[in-house]
């Protein structure tokens, strides 16, 4: 996936993030949709998007399954201030792509449409993260475990 994204003009980091989004989406289908049962189908379609003149060219990825249908409005990333395992996948997907649209398929299963453009909002977020790392403002947080704990103590055991 990352190699395909690079061929369509995405940066190294954006390509990695797009691959991460697809990985997270597939994991969600396998884990939550199919309850980790083997033998169920997942369809993935990828096609290029022309430059729209503002956000650049991009890729559209559609992932479909035959898992139990759920209300798309209930597919939400969790509150990130709630420090606990799980629930991160949807948040990550929404952060690293420009559009993430869930819908029930006709008949059975769910459809997730992902859109990411080379100069879209998610690419800018990726650039901001990269810049934070490069200038050291967001990386190498060596606050002591006690400090980290005190900042989130009330929520860590959730």
């Amino acid at each position, binding site marked *: 996936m990352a190699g395909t994204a690079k061929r369509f003009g995405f940066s190294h*980091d954006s390509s990695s993030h797009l691959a991460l989004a697809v990985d997270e989406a597939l994991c969600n289908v396998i884990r939550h949709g199919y309850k980790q049962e083997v033998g169920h189908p997942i369809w993935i379609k990828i096609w290029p998007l022309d430059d729209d003149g503002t956000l650049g060219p991009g890729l559209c990825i559609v992932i479909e399954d035959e898992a139990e249908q759920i209300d798309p409005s209930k597919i939400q990333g969790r509150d990130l201030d709630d420090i*606990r395992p799980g629930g991160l996948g949807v948040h*990550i997907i929404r952060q690293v792509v420009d559009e993430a649209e869930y819908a029930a398929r006709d008949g059975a299963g769910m459809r997730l449409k992902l859109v990411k453009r080379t100069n879209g909002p998610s690419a800018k977020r990726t650039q901001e993260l990269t810049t934070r*790392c490069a200038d050291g403002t967001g*990386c190498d947080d*060596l*606050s002591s*475990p006690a400090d980290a704990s005190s*900042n989130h103590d009330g929520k*860590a055991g959730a």
Partner: protein
Amino acid sequence: MHEGQSQNPDGSMDIRSHDQKTIVLSVSGEVDIMRSPDLQNSLQDAIGKVPGKGSVIVDLSGVSYMDSSGVATLVRGLQLSRKKGVGLVLCSLQDRVRSIFEIARLDTVFPIAGTFDEAVEAAASV
């Protein structure tokens, strides 16, 4: 002192003592939904070996990829370490792995050291 190792073609998890108060868990390969259970077991082993007021350093320098299941496993490890009253320090994250912590805004929750030596210093201050 080598204490335990779990290896498969996708990478390894190695637990060793650094000193009397510090256990090091070195992880390599990709940590995804398939390997997260291995990481969870190794983390539990490592945390179980740490004496009171000691620390576990999780050396992620060899991890080329991690998804949300890996991050969730580390969050569980952090919670377990806090319950046990020991420290948990991550170190040497590759950019690709670091970015998922930043996207999940967990880079300020975990103590994250740039290098192993910095992790040892951070662990000693617990």
